[in-house]
């Protein structure tokens, strides 16, 4: 038992710190609008998810972590980064829980609390895309792929596909840049400042 709580008997009842774990389900509900306690683990989502084999927890198991308030495990798991939001799970859930929205809420929470992403390369990729939008207002795919290569240092993986795309002129060398870039740049500042 937490010693600070047993002391509270003798002294004036002050603010008793409550472990944030207890509020995980509530926080997720606030952010995603979804009630995780509705899930009774029929595993429809786990059976339907195309990416479940790459996950460490099945989608319903992620919900279980949230139900139990296992904050570190939920925010630090791979599954929330593997999820692409295809909504296979959400459309199959008999309780109509939007699981993809919950995954999204967990990602936001993990970023805000600085929990290291269990899939750093996926996070790195997203960052490169965001950086590209910040610079040009649109995504420049060749630039994103090259910077992603620098990040992962896997120089030669996927080289064949990249060369094919270049040969087919599918990757533009020059980025398309919007005129009024100043209209969107201010929105990026809080993002980088928050250390995401």
């Amino acid at each position, binding site marked *: 038992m937490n010693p600070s709580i047993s002391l509270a008997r003798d002294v004036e009842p002050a603010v008793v710190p409550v472990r944030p774990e207890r509020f995980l389900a509530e926080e997720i509900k606030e952010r995603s609008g979804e009630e995780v306690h509705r899930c009774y683990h029929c595993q429809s989502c786990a059976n339907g998810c*195309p*990416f479940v*084999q*790459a996950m460490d927890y099945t989608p319903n198991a992620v919900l279980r972590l949230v139900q139990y308030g296992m904050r570190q495990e939920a925010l630090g798991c791979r599954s929330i980064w*593997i999820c*692409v*939001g*295809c*909504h*296979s799970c*959400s*459309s199959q859930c008999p309780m*109509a829980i*939007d699981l993809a*929205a919950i995954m*999204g809420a967990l*990602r*936001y929470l993990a*970023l805000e609390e600085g929990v290291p992403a269990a*899939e750093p*390369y*996926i*996070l790195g*990729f*997203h*960052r490169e*895309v*965001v950086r590209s*939008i910040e610079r040009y*207002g*649109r*995504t*420049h*795919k060749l630039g994103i*792929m090259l910077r*992603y290569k620098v990040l992962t240092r896997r120089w030669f993986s*996927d080289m064949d*596909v990249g060369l*094919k*795309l270049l040969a*087919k*002129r*599918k*990757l*533009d060398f020059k980025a*398309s840049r*919007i*005129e*009024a870039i100043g*209209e*969107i740049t*201010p*929105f*990026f500042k*809080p*993002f980088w400042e928050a250390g*995401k």
Partner: protein
Amino acid sequence: MNQAAAQDFSYFPGCSMASTAAESNLSMMKACKILGLNLIELEDWNCCGSSSAECLDKNLSLALAARNLSLARPDRPLVVMCPRCLHKLRYTQLLLKNEPKTRRRLEYRWGRAIPPNLEIVHFMEVLVRNGFPDLRAGKVRSLKGLKFAPYYGCTLFRPPILSRRKYYQGEMENILTTLGAQALVGAYTNRCCGSFLSATNPEIVSPLVNEIVGSAVAVGAHCLVTACAMCQLNLEIRCTAEPKIPIFHFSEILALALGATDYEDWFARHLVDPRPLLQELALVA
């Protein structure tokens, strides 16, 4: 929709259609020209903020989508072809309806109104609404003999937040069978293509793409026709199984049937060359 003025639309291409999937864009523009639909590109549009921006920051992705809405004229429907952009723009519109403060803050910043009741429609919806007589009248090449497996990807009708809104399943089949093609059932039509995992984790995506393409081969399809430019790319680059069949974007087949002649430029950009198939069916020279 029958008056001449009603045929003007704003058009949001999105990053994919403007770059990697330029052939989808070109063919769609061609089809529109033939059908007398005047698509006017939103001036200085930016990325809709879907996918990566949405994964990392809610406010940022909201602002990115909202700026595009602020560029649109309220009296013209906004046509979108990319399912992801469509979803993002519609979702943002819904969100701003519920958050008037956010809307006003953004309007003030940009000095432009965000039209609250702007109609945001998918390209297929425009065709269906216009009616099939137009398509039949415009048909130059019959697609007779072309057996295709329709592939919508995950975004066109899945997102629960938009589930009480328009539904697109079946429209691609309706349009292309009107033009003479034969739609096959039984293949995966809405299984996810892998989205950004195709870039970061191809080893996860390849087996899934092989299943999707394999399911189309198994029902005897000559090709897959997708509604999404990113799906089209992922299905082409991540398929490692044999036989590979051509993957078309919906607009390419549409424009071809309507008599477009500049198809050489589009098909040359495919990783799986569709020309042998189309030559066999006497659809191209």
